[in-house]
C-alpha cells in the first residue's frame, strides 16, 4: 500500500517535472548534446566534466523558464532590457580589458558579459513593444523599434565584439521582420546597406578588416591571420565522406586547429566524421529550427509568435555563422557552434531560448481560453 502510494507520488512528481518539457524539442536538443559530448571527448577530453556541469545548469535554466508563462516573461522584458543597457554602459566605463576588448564587467564576486544577456533581452523587449502597439501599429513604430535595437548593438560593437553585435542585431531584426516590416523597406535597407559598405569598412577596427581580407585570401598570410582558416578548411576537406574517425583526426589531435574546443570545434567534428557527420548535424539544426518555427506558427499571442520566431532564427544564425566561418565562406567572428562549443554562458543562453520556446508551446491553449 504505502509502497504504491510512494510510487504514485514519485510518478506524480516526475510527471510534473517533465510536464512543461516539449518532447520533440528535448529530443533534438538531447541528440545535439550527445553529439557535443562525443566531439568534446575528442577535441578536449579534459574539459568534458566541466562542460557536463554547464549542460546541467543550462538544462535547469530551461526547465525553469519552460514553466514560466509568456505573460510573466513579457513583464520581465523592459526591466531585463534596461538592466542590460545599464550594464553595457558600465562595461564601457569600468569594464575589464582582455585580448584588446572591453567585454567583461567585474561585479566583485563574479565577472559577467552583459552583451550575452542582450541576445535574449533585445528580442524580448521588441516582442513586448510590438505586442503593446499591436492594435495601432504605425510606420514610425518600426523606427522606435530600430532605435531600441541599435542602441545596445552600437554599445556592443564598440567593445568591440562584432560576433555578439551581429547576433543581437539579427535577433532584433527577426522580431521586426516577423512584426511585418514591409518588403519595400527591407529592400531599401539592403540597397542602403550595400551603398554604405565602404563607410562601414572605415568604421571597422584593423583586426576586423583583416578578418574579412583573410576570408578572401587566407593564403596571403598563412602563418598569421590566415592560419585559422587554412587549418580548419584543411581539417574539413581531409575528412572526406566518412571522416577519419573519432579521435583520429590528425589536424585536431596534433593541434593544428586553433581554438578547437570553442569556436573551431566544428572543424574537429567535420574532420573526424566527414560529410556524413556534417549532414547529420545540419539535419539536427534544421529539425530544431523547423520545430521552433512550428511553435511560432501556433503561438497564442503576437508577443509569443514574435519571440518564438526570433529565438528560433537565433539558433539558425549561430549555426550558420559558425559553420560558415569555419568552412571559410564567412569572416571569422566570435560565434560558437550552438550546443556543441565549450562554454557555459552560450549554452545557458541557448537553453534559455529552448525554455522560452517550450513555455510558449506549453501555454498556447491557456491564453486562448
Amino acid at each position: 500500500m504505502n509502497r504504491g502510494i510512494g510510487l504514485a507520488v514519485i510518478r506524480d512528481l516526475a510527471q510534473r517535472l517533465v510536464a512543461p518539457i516539449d518532447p520533440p524539442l528535448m529530443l533534438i536538443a538531447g541528440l545535439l548534446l550527445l553529439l557535443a559530448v562525443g566531439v568534446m571527448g575528442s577535441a578536449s577530453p579534459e574539459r568534458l566534466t566541466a562542460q557536463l556541469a554547464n549542460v546541467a545548469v543550462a538544462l535547469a535554466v530551461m526547465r525553469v523558464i519552460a514553466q514560466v508563462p509568456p505573460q510573466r516573461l513579457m513583464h520581465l522584458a523592459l526591466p531585463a532590457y534596461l538592466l542590460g543597457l545599464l550594464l553595457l554602459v558600465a562595461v564601457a566605463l569600468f569594464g575589464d580589458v582582455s585580448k584588446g576588448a572591453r567585454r567583461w564587467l567585474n561585479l566583485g564576486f563574479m565577472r559577467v558579459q552583459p552583451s550575452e544577456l542582450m541576445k535574449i533581452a533585445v528580442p524580448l523587449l521588441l516582442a513586448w513593444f510590438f505586442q503593446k502597439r499591436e492594435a495601432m501599429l504605425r510606420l514610425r513604430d518600426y523606427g522606435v523599434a530600430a532605435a531600441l535595437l541599435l542602441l545596445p548593438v552600437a554599445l556592443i560593437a564598440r567593445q568591440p565584439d562584432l560576433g555578439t553585435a551581429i547576433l543581437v542585431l539579427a535577433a532584433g531584426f527577426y522580431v521586426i521582420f516577423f512584426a511585418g516590416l514591409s518588403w519595400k523597406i527591407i529592400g531599401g535597407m539592403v540597397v542602403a546597406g550595400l551603398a554604405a559598405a565602404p563607410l562601414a569598412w572605415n568604421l571597422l577596427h584593423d583586426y576586423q578588416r583583416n578578418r574579412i581580407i583573410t576570408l578572401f585570401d587566407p593564403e596571403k598570410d598563412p602563418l598569421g591571420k590566415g592560419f585559422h582558416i587554412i587549418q580548419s578548411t584543411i581539417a574539413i576537406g581531409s575528412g572526406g565522406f566518412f571522416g577519419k574517425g573519432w579521435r583520429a583526426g590528425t589536424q585536431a589531435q596534433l593541434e593544428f586547429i586553433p581554438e578547437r574546443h570553442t569556436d573551431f570545434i566544428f572543424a574537429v567534428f567535420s574532420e573526424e566524421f566527414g560529410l556524413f557527420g556534417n549532414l547529420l548535424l545540419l539535419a539536427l539544426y534544421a529539425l530544431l529550427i523547423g520545430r521552433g518555427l512550428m511553435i511560432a506558427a501556433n503561438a497564442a499571442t503576437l508577443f509569443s509568435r514574435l519571440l518564438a520566431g526570433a529565438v528560433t532564427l537565433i539558433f539558425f544564425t549561430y549555426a550558420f555563422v559558425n559553420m560558415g566561418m569555419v568552412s571559410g565562406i564567412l569572416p571569422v567572428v566570435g560565434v560558437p557552434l550552438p550546443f556543441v562549443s565549450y562554454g557555459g554562458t552560450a549554452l545557458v543562453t541557448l537553453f534559455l531560448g529552448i525554455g522560452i520556446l517550450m513555455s510558449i508551446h506549453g501555454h498556447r491553449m491557456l491564453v486562448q481560453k
Partner: protein
Amino acid sequence: MEFKNPQEELERFRSRLAVAGGFVLFCFTLLFVRFVWLQIVQHDYYQTRAEDNRISLVPIVPNRGLILDRNGVVLARNYSAYTLEITPSKTRDLDQVIDGLAGIIDIQAKDRKRFKKLLEESRNFESLPIRTRLTDVEVAKFIAHRYRFPGVDIKARLFRQYPGGAFASHMLGYIGRVTDRDLEKIEEQDQEANYRGTEHFGKTGLEQHYEFKLHGETGFEQVEVDAGGRAVRTLARSAPVAGSNLTLTVDIELQRIAEQAFGDRKGALVAIEPSTGGILALVAMPNYDPNLFVDGIDTQNWKELNESPDKPMVNRALNGAYPPGSTFKPFMALGALTLGKRRAEQAISDPGFFNFGGHTFRDDKKGGHGSVDMYKSIVQSCDTYYYMLANDMGIDNISAFMAQLGLGSRTGIDIDGESEGVLPSQEWKRKRFKKPEQQKWYAGETISIGIGQGYNAYTPIQLAHATAILANKGVVFRPHLVKFVTDTKSGERALVEPKPTRTLALKPEHIEVIKNAMVGVNKEGTGARAFAGAEYVAAGKTGTAQVFSLKGAEYKAGGVKKELRDHALFIAFAPADEPKIALAILVENGGFGAQAAAPIARQVLDYYLLGKKPNAPAPADEAAVEEDDQ
C-alpha cells in the same frame, strides 16, 4: 490608423515564417555545397595538405668518409661532440643572450668572434654554434637553465678532425660550413635532397675534390609532428650510408719527413711513384692547421692566415709557378736528341758566353767550361750549351716538346684549382699581350728559355710530373693522390687511376743518355755533395731560379734581402735504373739548388728507399758548389 484583421495578420506572420524557413534552407544548402566542395571534390588536395602538416622528414646526416694514407693511417676522421647553438632568428637581443650564456658556460672572446663570423656568412634560420665540444658538466648546467634561453639549444654533432694537424694540410684541405656558393655546386650535382641537414662542405684539397664521394647518403626519419613542430612519433626511417673512404697513394711518414725537412723555409715538394703516377708526398710550406676551420674559424686566426706575408694558405705545389732554372736542361737535352738537333757526343766549345743579336748571354763560369758534350752540359750545368741549343731548336719546337711532358698545362691531379703555369711559345705571346709590338716573339727571347729562365714558369707538380715521365721512360700517368675509393656499404674498392694516359714517342737510348747525365750530377756534379755516400744511385738536377735581376753585377746571396734571393730547385728520381720515386723540390729564396733543395731530396730519398729517418731538418749546405746560373 489602419484596421487590423487578426486572421489576416496571422496569415501574414505565417507567410513570413515560411520565408524565414526558406531562407534557412537556402543557407544550409549553401553550407552543404561548400562541404561537398571541400570534402568530396577537393578532398585529395586537403588530404595531402593534412599529411604535409603532420609528417615531417628529418634528415639524418651520414658520417663523412675517412681519409687514409697508403698504409691505412687515418688522416681525417670524425668525432661526436655536443655544441651549444643559437638560432638567431628566434632570439631578440643576441648579445644579451650570449652574455647570459657566458654566465653559466665558459664563452671566450674568440668564441664570440667566431660566432660573429658565422653569423655574417649564415643562411637564414639556421642554428649556429657559439661553443663546441661541451663537457658533460657544461651540458648539465645549460639544461638546468634552458628555460631562460629560447632559441638556444644543445646539439650532438659530428666534427671533422685532422689528427696530423698542419701536416699534409694543403693536400687534405678542410671542410667548413655550407655557403651559398657551395649550394650552387650542390644544385649543379642535383644533390639538394641528399644535402638536407648537411652543414659542412669540402672547401679545399681532397675534401673539396672528393666532396660528393666523402659525403655519403643522407638517411631520413619520417616523424609525425604537432602544430608546435614537436615530434610525436616516428613513422618510418631509412638509415644513412656513410661516405666513401679515400685511401691515398701518399705515404704519410714520407710526407712528414719531407715537411720537416723544410724546417721554417717556404717552398714545395712533390714526390711521385713513376710507375703509377701515385703521389707519395705533396708538400707546400708553410702549412696551416685545418682543424681551425672545422668549427668555423675565428676572425683573428683568419686574418693572420690571410695577411701573413708567407701566404700559408697558398698551395705552392699546385699554385706557385716558378721558372725551372737549370732543372729545365735535362728536358731540353732530351728534346734535342728526340728532334735530332744534337747527338750526345757532339761537343761545343764554351768561351763562357754566347753572343746573339748584339747581346751577350753569360755563362756563370768565367772563361767557360771548355769543350762540352751533352753529359758534361748536364753534370756541370753549362749555360752556353743550352743558349746555343735553344737557338738551334727554336721556340716552337721547344714548346711543342715540353707540352708533351705536361709542362704548362694542368696535370689533372685530384685537387681543384691547379695553376697552368706558362709554357712560352709564339702563339702564347700573341695571346698573352695586347700591343702588337709586344705580341711578336723575338729570337733573342728563345735564348734564356734554354736555361729555364725567361717567360718559363711551371708549378712544382708539373716539374715532378715531367721528371716522373722521364723516369718512367715516356709512359705518362696522371698524377693522383687517391689510390682507391672504398664504398662503405658494399666494401667495393674503385681504383682511381688504373691505366696510363699516354705513351710518348721517346727512344730508350735517348732516355739512357739523360739518365746517365743526371746520375753524373749526383756523382760528380752539382748534386755530389748532397748525395755523398748514398747507398743507392739517384739521378738528379739542381736548378736556381732568378727572382731578381742584378743586371750584370755579381750575385751574392748574403748581399740581397731574403725575399729577393733566388729560388732553389732540385729534381730527382731513384734508384736510377728502376725508379721507385721521382720528385721536384722548390725552396723559395733558398739560394741555389745544390745548397737548399738537394739536401731535402737526400732526406726524402733516404727515408723512402732505405727507411732512414733524419733527426733534424735538412741543413742548408753553404759550401755547396754554385752552379752556373746567373
